[in-house]
């Protein structure tokens, strides 16, 4: 089924078209939800709520960008809204003692191949991974993130810096990436 047919069918509340659209985009969208969620079950709940919004707001889609991008934005906002309902989230997003968090070896998932980067992201503290997901992967600006999460822009920046640093450490320890070589000049390290 073409995208146009799916869209027109969804606008008519046609179940077949809705299922076709769902089947096409749900695997990738579940991947998005999974990066924000605590576990697969929570991710599926987020996906479910996200797609209900997608179908109920389909008439607002203006064909001005990729359909996947439009769906993705709705799903991401749904994830954030669900996270914000969780009390633990509000506690973790304003972490002031982030420097005291240490990643222990057993906290890092021992997995191989495609999932490894995503699982390492998921092993970050909740506040860190949320900001990192939004900034580095979803492409939101710190200003937008601050608005979405009800935090200061500076908080978003510092969360991201710490998240990135922690993730680098994890990826290096898992040997997924290697330490960057220090730049040197004639007299030694810069």
């Amino acid at each position, binding site marked *: 089924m073409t995208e146009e047919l799916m869209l027109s069918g969804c606008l008519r*509340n046609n*179940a077949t078209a*809705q*299922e076709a659209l*769902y089947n096409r985009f*749900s*695997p*990738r969208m*579940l*991947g998005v939800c*999974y*990066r924000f969620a605590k576990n*697969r*079950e929570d*991710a*599926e709940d987020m*996906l*479910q709520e996200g*797609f*209900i919004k997608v*179908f*109920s707001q389909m008439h607002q889609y203006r064909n001005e960008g990729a359909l996947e991008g439009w769906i993705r934005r709705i799903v991401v906002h749904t994830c954030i809204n669900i996270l914000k309902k969780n*009390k633990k989230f*509000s506690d973790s997003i*304003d972490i*002031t003692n982030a420097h005291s968090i240490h990643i222990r070896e057993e906290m890092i998932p021992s997995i191989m191949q*495609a*999932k490894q*980067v*995503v699982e390492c*992201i998921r092993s970050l503290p909740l506040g860190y991974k949320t900001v*990192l*997901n939004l900034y*580095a*992967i979803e*492409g939101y600006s710190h200003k937008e993130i601050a608005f979405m999460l009800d935090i*200061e822009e*500076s*908080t978003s920046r510092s969360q991201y810096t710490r998240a*990135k640093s922690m*993730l*680098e450490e994890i990826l290096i320890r898992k040997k*997924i*990436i*290697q*330490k*960057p*070589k220090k730049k040197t000049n004639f007299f030694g390290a810069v």
Partner: protein
Amino acid sequence: MENEFYTDEFEQLLKEKADQFSMYPSKRVWHSIYNNLHPSRRWPSVVISLFFISSLILIGYLNTGENSITRQINSNSNISTSFVSEKASPEKISRKPEVVTYSKTTQQPELQYNNAFADVITNETDFYAYTVVKSNMPVYLSATTASTDIKTIPETLETINNPGDIVQTVNTYIRSNQIFADIAVINKKNKTTIAKSSVNSNTENMIVSNNTDPVKSPAADEANTLLNPAGNQTNTGLAKLNAPKENADAPGNEDKRAVTNEEKAWMENYAFQNKPVAKKWKGRLGYQVYVTPAVNYRKLTTKVKGSATPFAQGDINHSISQKPGFGFEAGVGLNYAVAKRLLVKAGVQFNYTNYNIAADRATHPITTTILLNDPATGYSYSSARTSTTSNTFNAAPARPVTLHNRTYQVSLPVGFGYKLSSQDNVEWFAGATLQPSYYFGGKAHLISTDLKSYVSDPSSISSWNLNVGIETYMNFKLGTYNFQVGPQVRYQVNSTYKRDVALIEKPYAIGLKFGLTKGF
């Protein structure tokens, strides 16, 4: 993976890998979406649920062979209507401000509001009609009593606030990081004097009532820095809140009464730092009261050794005329959610079981025997008894009488519930309980060895037994309460009678459970 690694490449790597990542959701997700989008065409899971519950009822019916109970079982089938739910909006309902009006009276205001009314009421007989608006929405209070400065509930105040009334903050509290307030509208004659005096008390009420100085709290300072990187804004806001308000009351200074951003930031910070410590068990623990009207059945067998009696020939259930009876269970218990879908439960329960036997009243007592087993050898023997009722099986009774085999029990059910599915405010559970039970009373009518008479012998009832309950139910979330309804089967593991009785009776009950649960 790349050996050379730079920051921008790192972000690129993250994005690439994350975008490549996808997972296939379970079918449950699409079914839930489908049901939500097409409520008139529910997914077959509802049909399966109905089938499951109907099967339970049917099994109970088939096990009795008594057509007389058909109507009773059919009456239970109306639970199927509970599967269709309307999308409720409890949030909207709960967020309406609660308005309580106290008419002009000589009674004192409620104790909790006494301090707030101290400025208004000058002597003990000087009480006035007042209205308390208990806001269920967060408010930002200004340092004045002008009704126009009270945010979020202007509609309500407009309807009750007449010119000249005094609007007074009487109670403030913090919930979910937000400030809530109860506002009193007091009908007072001398509006000018009172309005001025209530200005200061308003601010004091809001801040000093907690007897804490948030500025001195190190945690608060830390959060101030976080929320206000400039560092000097919070203290300024607090200072303004605590400062005398005479300037604000001066003519032409009304604009200064509005909440400033600094005050708002301080309040947010204060609420953030003073939020109640979350108790882990809170929200997971709930108490339940329930009652289960049930139809009681029983299965009779015999345990005979070394004795050729009618007991040993064929199914004894076909040699007596028996009918199911009505019983019930009622109890209270605690439910604790150990996981998102799993809860464990324990409680105390009262059970009443009843089973009917059709008999014929004898004109005079007759001698008969009941079959007992020797505890030492296991061999059966007949024990002499007297009887006043006879078995009417295959014979028309001259003086019909119904004998009731009853038990009164106290149980301590321990079990679990598992959430099979949920949608909006409706959840479907299945569960089971083990119920150690103490039988503290009842009646027992035992069939005689020759199957011709009944012998009444309450002492033959065993004091302790074990029951198993299996249930499935729908849970409806109704505000702060949860209402449960669903079929339940309760089965007694051991015989009702003591070990030396050769008759083995194992009753079971099929009922409809109604429960009400509330969280702590």
